[in-house]
């Protein structure tokens, strides 16, 4: 039985890896535990070892290429094995999984360890051909690849035995087609064309944001829950405190209220990892601060122990430092929950993207006058809509709803925040 080698996940934050080199070539014998490739993520290289013995039947990426975590990058199987068996059942390679012993592997395993098996390079291991599978001779793997690449096998000249189409033939064909298209395009260029677009290089901040939101959107199943909150009392409290000489913004009240609601529902102050849920003992709330060139999210740490006044002064300090560019890495890291407020732009409500590895983010709109019915009478109210985006792997709808209900309760009865 053949096994697939996949791009390993070497970090919670790794989404793709670069193949540095193959240490074995196609057709070469591989023993369990031997290093078959080297992959790179960031500035760290990992030697990839084989978890099963056999022959390296196929490699699917070339050095320098990037592959998403989990993609099949190579296949190990018995010498001359038909890779057919693999196509329907994609056997995922795991460390626990013992390969079903092939005769060759068994023989190798039976030998005493001191005897080193001589290397037997097999430069051209071709899968055994199968008749009657279509007019063009090609392995099912090549067929699948051709399908994925959108290539009609009829158009490809096979270089294998009996005109068999090999993986290399597909690649050559694709290159050729590309060249043809290019020539065609160049021919068209003679005509005066529109102004060429000049690509702008990414700023560091843009690149970091792009990376973060892509990871988030690709890995976190988001769902949202929105509630309308009457901010009348909260506004009164803020005004009252201002008169008494304490500057507290609605944003500060919001942070404090979120901290209280998170204390009641710690499941929303959590991170999802591959095999566990981490509930963070400390409530560290990130505040999205928009800048001309992007955004920064300074973090107010230990909110569970901070008074409303503490939160107000820390948030003022951090936001002004984020705007002036004097904030440091420590102040931007360690968040366990975030808040994004677009109220000042006249936004009614919106949905925010979660910052991995956090489990949720709150998006708040502006406070607007709206009619509401209280005790059977239509009265004006100061309504703010708040939307939570939650990681569904961690948090279910009812849990998010309970949290939002608690947040609403605290903000509508804000005196609780002074205690």
């Amino acid at each position: 039985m053949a096994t697939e080698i996949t791009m390993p996940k070497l970090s919670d934050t790794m989404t793709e890896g670069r193949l540095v080199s193959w240490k074995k070539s196609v057709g070469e014998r591989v023993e369990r535990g031997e290093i078959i490739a080297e992959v790179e993520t960031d500035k760290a290289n990992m030697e990839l070892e084989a978890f099963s013995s056999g022959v390296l039947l196929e490699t699917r990426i070339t050095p320098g290429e990037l592959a998403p975590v989990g993609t099949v990058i190579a296949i190990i199987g018995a010498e001359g094995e038909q890779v057919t068996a693999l196509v329907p059942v994609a056997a995922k390679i795991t460390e626990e999984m013992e390969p079903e012993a092939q005769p060759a592997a068994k023989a190798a395993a039976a030998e005493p360890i001191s005897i080193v098996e001589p290397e037997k390079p097999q430069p051209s291991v071709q899968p055994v051909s199968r008749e009657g599978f279509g007019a063009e001779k090609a392995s099912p793997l090549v067929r699948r690849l051709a399908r994925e690449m959108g290539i009609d096998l009829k158009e490809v000249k096979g270089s294998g035995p009996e005109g068999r189409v090999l993986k290399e033939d597909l690649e050559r064909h694709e290159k050729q087609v590309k060249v043809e298209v290019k020539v065609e395009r160049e021919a068209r260029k003679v005509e005066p064309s529109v102004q060429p677009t000049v690509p702008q290089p990414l700023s560091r901040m843009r690149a970091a944001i792009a990376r973060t939101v892509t990871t988030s959107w690709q890995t976190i199943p988001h769902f949202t829950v929105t509630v309308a909150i009457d901010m009348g009392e909260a506004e009164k409290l803020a005004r009252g405190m201002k008169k008494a000489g304490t500057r507290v913004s609605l944003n500060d009240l919001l942070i404090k209220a979120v901290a209280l609601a998170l204390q009641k529902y710690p499941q929303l102050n959590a991170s999802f990892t591959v095999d566990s849920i981490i509930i963070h003992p400390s409530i560290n709330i990130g505040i999205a601060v928009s800048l001309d060139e992007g955004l920064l999210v300074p973090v107010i740490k230990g909110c569970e122990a901070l008074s409303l006044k503490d939160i107000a002064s820390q948030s003022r300090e951090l936001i002004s430092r984020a705007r002036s560019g004097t904030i440091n890495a420590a102040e931007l890291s360690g968040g366990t929950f975030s808040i994004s407020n677009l109220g000042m732009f006249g936004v009614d409500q919106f949905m925010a993207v979660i910052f991995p590895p956090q489990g949720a983010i709150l998006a708040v709109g502006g406070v607007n006058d709206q009619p509401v019915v209280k005790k059977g009478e239509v009265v004006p109210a100061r309504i703010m809509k708040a939307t939570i985006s939650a990681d569904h792997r961690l948090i279910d709808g009812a849990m998010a709803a309970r949290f939002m209900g608690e947040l609403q309760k605290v903000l509508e009865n804000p005196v609780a925040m002074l205690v």
Partner: protein
Amino acid sequence: MNVTDLGVMEFGAALALQERLVAEIVVGAGPETLLLLEHPPVYTIGSGGSGANLLDPTIEAVRINRGGDVTFHGAGQLVGYPLLKLGERSRDLHRYLRFLEELLILTVADFGARAWRVPGRTGIWTANGKLAAIGVGVRRWVTMHGFALNVNADLTPFSRINPCGIAGCPVTSLVRECGVEVPLVEVKKLIGERFGVVLEEWLPVENSFMTGSHCQMPRPGK
């Protein structure tokens, strides 16, 4: 943490030593170790690095199994090779890189230099450029290679390469940042003392009983 001061050692000899110690750690026959040393002048290049970043064709660079591109090692540069069982400490390569950065940022701060991370550019940076380079190799989840902090190093050899594959990348040193002489031995002593503390904070050995949804595990700085 087992910290070994190797003084000045040729790159090749140090690499052989790393290989041997890693092999021991892999089979459980040796303890985790931090090697601290200086190298005689040498250019090294990561296995994914590009020869095009050697601007002077007469330079010879040792190609090794670490991440990153080309860099320079020489006197006045503190090199650290942590050989750790990352498999028991989070199995997270990015987190390991962030840990090395934290260790270096805290250490240079003690000498009065302010350095920071730049997302996507592993290493530590100041307004004048890169203060320490990081490049790591991992074999069976045991780490090798590590960091190189310019303490009072001569920075001119960096001008003959694109450090870490970044064209025109400025490089700085602790002495330049602080404006006063900083003895390498002091930096070495401090980093040796601090290493284990920051390591336990960032990458504690995971207790196999501490799994499941009830586990409460603070993750600093992530």
